[in-house]
């Protein structure tokens, strides 16, 4: 399987500070990728580099096939009617699929005659998504697509997005600072922290590799596992660990949620869970 995105030693500098530093990652094609991290971690910068809106100061970045981008501020023109947005899209994109676009808008019940500014936030997000999908991308990049949407609109946007993944098998890269929004939809996660890639991997493998342990504090010293995060009292230790071997039965072990996993890494910026470099055969 090919990689949809490959970055090696990527660095992006704004004036004198690095927005991204030494970022390496590979995302297999066909994945739905969550890009998470606190505000200011460099998520938007990384997305802009992926879609070619900025060129990196260091390193290399490759994507395969047509790339479509849905920016954070849903780049629609308020004075345009929906039909005019579609005409605009057709003129800018040689691979434009107008039939899919009008079909989707009809299914969503969004009239082509309506001015974009009179649509609800959810409808505007749907129009922006239709515009992005009509480019028939192999890689669809969305910057905080759910921000400012009510729960029903969030669900509707995700339904539309997942349906196109099921139909076309495209790769999707979605940024968000709310992990819970992406839990059911994404199967790969990239955690970005202070401009560096801290975690990149298959969500299910990461969740089976990690455990949350609670037990007597004296057991913590002779633990056969990589400790990612820890909190201690005089007597008790609570540890987020990776690749635990045989555990002392006094530990209480449980699976971690995706949210706990991400929080654990963000609190320990020096820890990382990155796959060993893999040569992917085309």
């Amino acid at each position, binding site marked *: 399987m090919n990689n949809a995105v490959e970055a090696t030693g990527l660095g992006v500098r704004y004036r004198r500070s690095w927005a991204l530093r030494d970022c390496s990652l590979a995302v297999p094609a066909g994945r739905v990728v969550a890009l998470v991290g606190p505000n200011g971690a460099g998520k938007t910068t990384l997305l802009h580099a992926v879609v070619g809106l900025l060129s990196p100061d260091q390193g290399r970045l490759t994507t395969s096939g047509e790339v479509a981008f849905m920016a954070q501020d849903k780049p629609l023109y308020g004075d345009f009617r929906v039909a005019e947005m579609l005409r605009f899209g057709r003129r800018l994109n040689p691979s434009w699929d107008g039939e899919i676009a009008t079909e989707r808008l009809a299914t969503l019940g969004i009239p082509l005659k309506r001015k974009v500014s009179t649509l609800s936030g959810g409808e505007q997000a749907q129009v922006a998504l239709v515009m992005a999908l009509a480019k028939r991308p192999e890689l669809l990049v969305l910057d905080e697509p759910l921000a400012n949407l009510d729960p029903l609109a969030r669900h509707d946007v995700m339904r539309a997005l997942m349906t196109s993944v*099921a139909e076309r098998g495209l790769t999707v890269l979605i940024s968000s600072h709310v992990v819970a929004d992406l839990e059911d939809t994404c199967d790969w996660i990239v955690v970005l922290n202070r401009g560096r890639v801290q975690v990149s991997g298959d969500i299910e493998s990461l969740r089976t590799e990690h455990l949350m342990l609670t037990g007597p504090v004296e057991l913590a010293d002779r633990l056969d596992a990589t400790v990612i995060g820890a909190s201690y009292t005089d007597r008790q230790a609570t540890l987020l660990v990776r690749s635990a071997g045989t555990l002392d039965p006094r530990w209480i072990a449980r699976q971690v949620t995706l949210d706990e996993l991400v929080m654990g890494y963000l609190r320990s910026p020096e820890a990382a869970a990155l796959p060993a470099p893999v040569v992917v055969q085309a």
Partner: protein
Amino acid sequence: MLPVIEFHLNKASGVSTYLQLVHQVKHALRLGMLVPGDQLPTAREVVERLAINPNTVHKAYRELEREGLAMGRPGMGTFVQRSIGGAALVDHARLRSGLAAWVLEGRKAGLDQEDLNAIFSSVVVESFREETA
């Protein structure tokens, strides 16, 4: 045509999404709502309703295939292969009486309800972890 069953999700259950789908198919099989030859909802139908990753649906269906309950026909869909018969209920009764004996033994050893629950759930968790490891 309407799909024969509709899936639903319980986000508070802590059970992974693919397993919830597997459990719901098995439940429908036990109750006779699904019978051999029925087509399961397509991945597209499921994700259009639940907004989940299509790979999650594929994974659930692979698990049902592995257990011999469903079969995928390329280009057509996934179909119910066999139903879950009454044998399962007989097993339930047998396992239940075995567990009752174990509980009694534990109480004689001085364990209370919480102790027993803790042992039971940690053994279940460990057993499944060994299986997936």
